[in-house]
Structures are given as structure tokens and as C-alpha cells.
């Protein structure tokens, strides 16, 4: 394949860029993703993952069943923040920085 061919449509990562990190030790889709941004765009690797799996297979001779799936993430496809938000102002797991500043006798701990 022509080396300039785009593999990841979203982030426009080329065959050549993926090839480079494969020769630099990356072996899984997620390794490639973190080093090149391949698969990090809005489609979240839905389109490129099979193309990348073929590349890993060809370049590293890894059988397909040993090439793990890319990590799939919520919210599965893009969603507006206001749709996710519930307008609640009570937080349990989410903190603010000031929550972590503790005062003791009127002084910072």
C-alpha cells in the first residue's frame, strides 16, 4: 500500500506513521493509539481498527487472535455534555481542588 495512505480518517494518521511506531516496539492497537493518536478522534477507532489490525498482523507476524481489541469507551458515540449533565450540584466522587485544602487552626495543614 502507498505509505501516505490515510488509515485513521478522523485524526488523519497515515500508514507510514503507524509503521514507524510498530518498528519502535508498539504491538497493540492501544499502543499505536497513544503514540500516534490513531483512533482517538470522534469515531473512536470504529472505522480504522480493522485496518490497523491488518497492519499489525502484516508487520509483526502476529496472528489475529493475539491482537487484542482496542479499548472501547463510553459514551460509545459522541454526546452533548448538557445531555449527560443532570443539573445536580451535589458531588460524591468528583471533588474540587479547594476540597483538598484543609484548614487547621486557621492555617493550611
Amino acid at each position, binding site marked *: 500500500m502507498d505509505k501516505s495512505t490515510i488509515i485513521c480518517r478522523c485524526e488523519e494518521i497515515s500508514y507510514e506513521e503507524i509503521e514507524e511506531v510498530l518498528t519502535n516496539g508498539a504491538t497493540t492497537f492501544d499502543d499505536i493509539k497513544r503514540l500516534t493518536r490513531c483512533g482517538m478522534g470522534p469515531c473512536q477507532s470504529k472505522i480504522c481498527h480493522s485496518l490497523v489490525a491488518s497492519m499489525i498482523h502484516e508487520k509483526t507476524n502476529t496472528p489475529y487472535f493475539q491482537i487484542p481489541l482496542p479499548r472501547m469507551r463510553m459514551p460509545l458515540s459522541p454526546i452533548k455534555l*448538557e445531555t449527560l449533565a443532570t443539573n445536580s450540584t451535589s458531588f460524591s466522587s*468528583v471533588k474540587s481542588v479547594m476540597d483538598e485544602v484543609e484548614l487547621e487552626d486557621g492555617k493550611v495543614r
Partner: protein
Amino acid sequence: MDRSYETIIIGGGVVGSSIAYHLSEQTKEAVLVLDQKFPLSGTSGSTQAWVWVHNKTPSWYAEFSMYSAELYSYLSKKIGDVEFKRTGGLSPFFNEADREKAVRLAEAYEQIGIKIKVLSREEALEKEPFLNPDVVGATYSAIDGNVNPFRLVDRYMRAAKKNGVQYSTYNKVTEIQKMPGKFIVVSEKGEFSCKNLILAGGTWSRELGKLVDVNIPINQLRGQILVTEPLKPFLNYTISGLRQAFNGEVLIGYSMEQEGFNRATTLDVIQETANMAVHYVPSLKKAKVVRAFSGIRAMPEDGFPILGKIPGVENLYVAATHSGVTLSPLIGTLMTELILEGETSIPIDRYSISRFAK
């Protein structure tokens, strides 16, 4: 691959790779980094990557963080562009009780020469016009910023490799034997020997410590982070809780859960994080979230870095910390000094693992 090294570093994350790089700048002796997976597959690849001093307490820890933050400006010149931006850090608050904390924090910092400004509502909105107008005020520090964590570790790794450091990835260490004058490190891909051994296992430090009968009291703390699609640049500062990356994505999150090594995300926390985002910056309402991820942070039992020699075992070192991104340039520098010269330019006694023995 060679089997004998001067130094072996277990863990190729931001801390391990920084040590490898800094060490390789100072010595030509052989260095090997072992990683059970691949650098960035753990904590270093799942972070907002603030370079953050701002609200670190107590002040001596803030000072330590500040020294590291200062090193970032030079780092890009040495290892390449890591998209470091000293944006300044802004911590908005929405009630008067927090203003009291902010004022006390600023006072405490003044004594060590870190300037924290407590901004009024108007000042905060002037600096960051997209903040919620209901904001009461904010603390501001010019020293804070952020960095691209993927680039950071990749550049550390590439620079280290260029200097001759070897990496062995997807190679879990299963056993460590202490022999006179050397360590035998047994891994899935065979045995290696070395004079110096550095444990930089991050969240896995406790497990690594067990291999040498040392208690490294590091626990896991899960943080869930949302990432939006790229937006035109509109946020000026690293806001405690969210920041806009070079490519326009906004990273949002400040959650803490104790879930061990479970990296799942949950809608409970994702929605809470969305609430925080629209509370801080209401204009984000229409922005779309493209992904949510969890990072397992390394959290020392008392919150402070565990650095230096492990007492009683010659040439055995540990570097395990929270805030690894902020502290990596300094930890890399100091550990290099410690290994090559036996002492450090900035005292790290306070961070010795021996403090837990008391």
C-alpha cells in the same frame, strides 16, 4: 538483547522513562527498562497531565513540585516538543468558605516564594471569560500548566533509546534475587542482571516491593476523565478540573474512587463530571464528549512521593509517586544524581521510604 546491565529500571511510565532518560544523559553505562506492558498503557497514558503546583500542601511539597515545574521549560529543548504550556492555573470557587481557604493557602505559599493570587469574581471572569458568572472568586498561580502526556513519555523514551537505553516491553518481572554486588531480575522473557535496581512501578509498586520483601505503601485511586471533541481555543488557563489541549479537546475530570486496579468507567461518575464541567464552564453544554477513560493513580499512603535508596539493600532504589507528570523531570534528575553521586542537589530525606517504618 544483552543480559547484563549497570542499571535496570522496572516500570517504563513517566517516572521510569524520565529516570532512564536523565541517567542516560549522564552515563554511558548500560540501562534497561522493563515494562509489564508498554509505556503509556497505565497511569501515564490516562491522565489530564497538569503540571500543577498550585494547591499542593504543605508548602514544602509545593516547593518540591515547583522545582519540577520549572524544569519543564528546559525539557522540551532537550527531548523535543512535548506540548508543554505554562498556561497558569486557575482554581475557581463558588462559596465564601472557600475564599477563606484560598487566602490561607496564598499566605502559606508566600513564605516559600510561590505567588498565589486570590482573584475577585470580576478578576476571575476577566482572565477566563467563559467561567460561570456565578463564580465567587478563584486562586491563580502563574507557575501551573499542562503537557501532552503521550508526547512526554514518547519523547523521554525516544531520547533515552537514542542514548543507548534498551526497553523490554510486555515483559513482566516475576522474581528478583539479591546476590552479592548484583541483582538477578527474572522476567517472562528471561533473566537479567544489574548492579543498580530501580523500582518505578507506579500503581504496582506494592506488588514490586513484595519481590524484594519491602513494603512500598502505594494504593490505587481511580480517576475518570471526559474528553470533548476539539473546539476552537477558548480556555486560557489550566482550570482545576478541566483544561483545553493543544488540539482543542477539553479534558474534564477530578474524581477519586478506590476501586483497586479496575479501570472501568461508570455513568454515575461520568454524569457527575459532566455536571462539574457545565457548572464551571456553562458554554461547554453544546460540546460533545467523544470518550471517557479511567486512570488508576498511584497514591502513597501519606500522599507524598516515595523516593531514594531502600535502606538495608545495597543499590536498590524506589521512585513511586502521585503527580508523576508534574514531578517527572525533577525525579529523573534527582534519582540520577543519587545513583551516580550518592547524593542529591535538593534534599529528599523527607521522601525516604524509611518514614513508613516509624
